[in-house]
């Protein structure tokens, strides 16, 4: 029996957010709301619906019927026509579908290359498909393989290494300077989305305390409450800087508010303990000369952007390496699938051999006359051994995963013709 794997879907590259919203199936992948009804054409199905992609994976004997059934079910669930989906769709069949699924699981197809959420989302999608009794031998094996491929890509390449957001890049740098975060304090000067995000990441990294300084006292108090820290007035800034190891600035000041000359005395009182300044403001809040001081490190928004760009480029390089892993794993899975296709023929071949052995044995034993138990057993064993040995070569030929020049269907056809497995029973008679 053939097992065609088909994947249809749309993602952030092929469809805008409005289209993704319109065709989302997040509400249609629970057992009681399952969007893909069982059908003869479709033996297994999986729905993956996230904010960046909606994908349907199906298995059946005929890829065209599987595709049509998936699209009809999808459109129907969203009260649309399959044609409405067409402009935004991509479709993959067979090994291409398997490769795409492996790429999605490994986050090689994600908007932010290497982001870790997609694997969790795929696992959840699989769980729901299992709960909806929509999966079978093929998808169970395929999804488990996808999870292990994702793990392999993550451990064997650096596709998920290094921060790809400005705020997180700042925290990663802080770690390179200070190591453990819990013994250090941060100072947030001013407020802005990115600065607040950086402070939030520092908090998650376990920073000891965050002090917030703002020209507006209320805003400082509000932020301090959010970060479980303390608020301080702008006039206290020089004293607060001396206490802080990490300073994030994001004020609207047209002039730098922290200069190298102010910091020399601060460093002395700190006994030269290192300081890391993250200047997210434009125009900059911190004089670039500060980076020239010993034990002081300064990164402004452009520096951080550059770090992120380089990290992204690094991830892209790693994604190319991951491609080789995907190819290898797709070949392995395809070999397994092909062996599944040849399985019925293997069984038939073995049965046929046994039948022929039994028939010939009956005839021979009749001719030989009375034999003792041992002689009988020896002749029976010999007849079955000959049948098994003759079958060994064609069975190995059928199981040659990806080694033979011919594909599995061609090999199955060849063996069936040579051994007349599809011939009417009469033709198997003597000497078959």
């Amino acid at each position, binding site marked *: 029996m053939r097992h065609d794997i088909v994947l249809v879907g749309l993602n952030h590259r092929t469809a805008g957010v409005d289209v993704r919203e319109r065709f989302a199936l997040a509400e249609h992948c629970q057992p009681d709301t399952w969007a893909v009804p069982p059908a003869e054409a479709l033996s297994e199905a999986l729905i993956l619906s996230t904010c960046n992609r909606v994908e349907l994976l199906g298995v059946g004997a005929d890829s065209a019927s599987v595709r049509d059934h998936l699209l009809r079910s999808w459109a129907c669930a969203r009260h649309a026509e399959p044609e409405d989906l067409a402009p935004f769709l991509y479709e993959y069949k067979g090994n291409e579908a398997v490769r795409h699924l492996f790429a999605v699981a490994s986050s090689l197809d994600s908007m932010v290359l290497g982001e870790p959420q997609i694997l969790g989302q795929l696992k959840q999608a699989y769980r729901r498909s299992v709960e909806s009794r929509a999966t079978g031998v093929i998808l169970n094996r395929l999804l488990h393989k996808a999870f292990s491929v994702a793990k392999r890509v993550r451990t064997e390449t650096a596709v998920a290494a290094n921060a790809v957001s400005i705020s997180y890049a700042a925290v990663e740098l802080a770690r*390179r300077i*200070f*190591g453990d975060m819990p013994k250090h304090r941060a100072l947030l000067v001013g407020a802005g989305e990115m600065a607040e995000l950086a402070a939030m990441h520092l908090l998650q990294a376990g920073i000891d305390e965050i002090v917030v300084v703002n020209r507006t006292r209320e805003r400082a108090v509000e932020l301090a409450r959010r970060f479980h820290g303390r608020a301080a007035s702008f006039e206290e800034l020089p004293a607060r800087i001396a206490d802080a190891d990490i300073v994030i600035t994001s004020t609207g000041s047209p002039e730098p508010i922290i200069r190298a000359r102010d910091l020399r005395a601060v460093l002395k009182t700190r006994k030269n303990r*290192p300081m890391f300044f993250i200047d997210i403001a434009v125009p900059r809040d911190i004089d670039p000369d500060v980076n020239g001081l*010993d*034990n002081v490190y300064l990164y402004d928004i452009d520096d951080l952007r550059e770090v992120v760009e380089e*990290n992204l480029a690094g991830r892209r390089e790693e994604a190319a390496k991951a491609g080789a892993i995907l190819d290898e794993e797709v070949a392995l899975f395809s070999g397994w699938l092909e062996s599944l296709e040849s399985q019925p023929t293997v069984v038939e071949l073995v049965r046929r051999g046994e039948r022929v052995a039994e028939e010939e044995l009956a005839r021979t034993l009749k001719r030989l006359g009375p034999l003792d138990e041992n002689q009988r057993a020896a002749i029976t064993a010999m007849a079955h051994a000959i049948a098994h040995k003759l079958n060994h070569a064609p069975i190995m030929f059928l199981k040659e995963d990806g080694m033979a020049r011919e594909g599995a269907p061609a090999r199955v056809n060849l063996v069936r013709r040579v051994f007349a497995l599809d011939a009417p029973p009469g033709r198997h008679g003597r000497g078959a």
Partner: protein
Amino acid sequence: MSLADLLAPETSTVLTLVVYALAGAVGLVGMLARRTALRRAACWLAVAAFACQTLLLALGAHASHPDGLTLGAYLQMLAWFVLLCGLGLWARFRQDAPLIFAALLGLILFLMSTPWLDDAVPLPPSLRGPFFALHIGALFLSLGLLALAFAAGALFLFLERRIKSKQRMAGIWQDMPALAVLDKINAICALTAFPLYTLGIVAGLFWARPVFGGTLTGDPKQVVSLLVWLLLAVLFHNRLASGWKGRKPARLAVFIFLLSVFSLVVVNVFMETQHAFLRG
């Protein structure tokens, strides 16, 4: 194989060298391939190398030349002290890089020791005694500490320059300890090395009086060692009193260790000194 065969300089050296080489090679591959498991394995192999050498020493491998000291044994003892310091730092900071460095340096010292296992410089009975043991023990321990202060300092200078100049941390540099940790390792090593070095020097000076007829003899080794001691004193004082951190102490620690290596390799081997190991 009898115990005496096992403790023969060649056999005990090969045995220990193999474990050192394993630790060094696994550590190096772990660093280059960025495999945490291999780096961890290298640390345990370094523990095994230290245990192996200690066991052989305890059984009497050091006593193969009872009347003197070979340059080979001298270098192997130094390797033991370097590894001891590496293990101490590993226990304290749980950072594998310093221990892998210590294992690699130990391996180099062991390899250097192999041609010099038999040419013992006879030690007159007057030279054997507690002052000699103190002199060698304290100085070797401080040299081991200085080697690790050098490694931490050099790595600090390299990584610090990359962070200051906003270069990307790629490849193996991503697995290196944070700057603050390297500075702390450098500080602990330098601060411990100074009193030990002082003890070693003072023991040496006491010991020199009856043997060489005077405390300060102007021997080249003595001069270089006093210079190292002076620089260590500057580092010690500034670390403690002036709050030196980061680049300055790292540079000085690197320089002090290089001077010590010069003193160890050039002065001991090639110069006319009371500390010579190779006498024709």
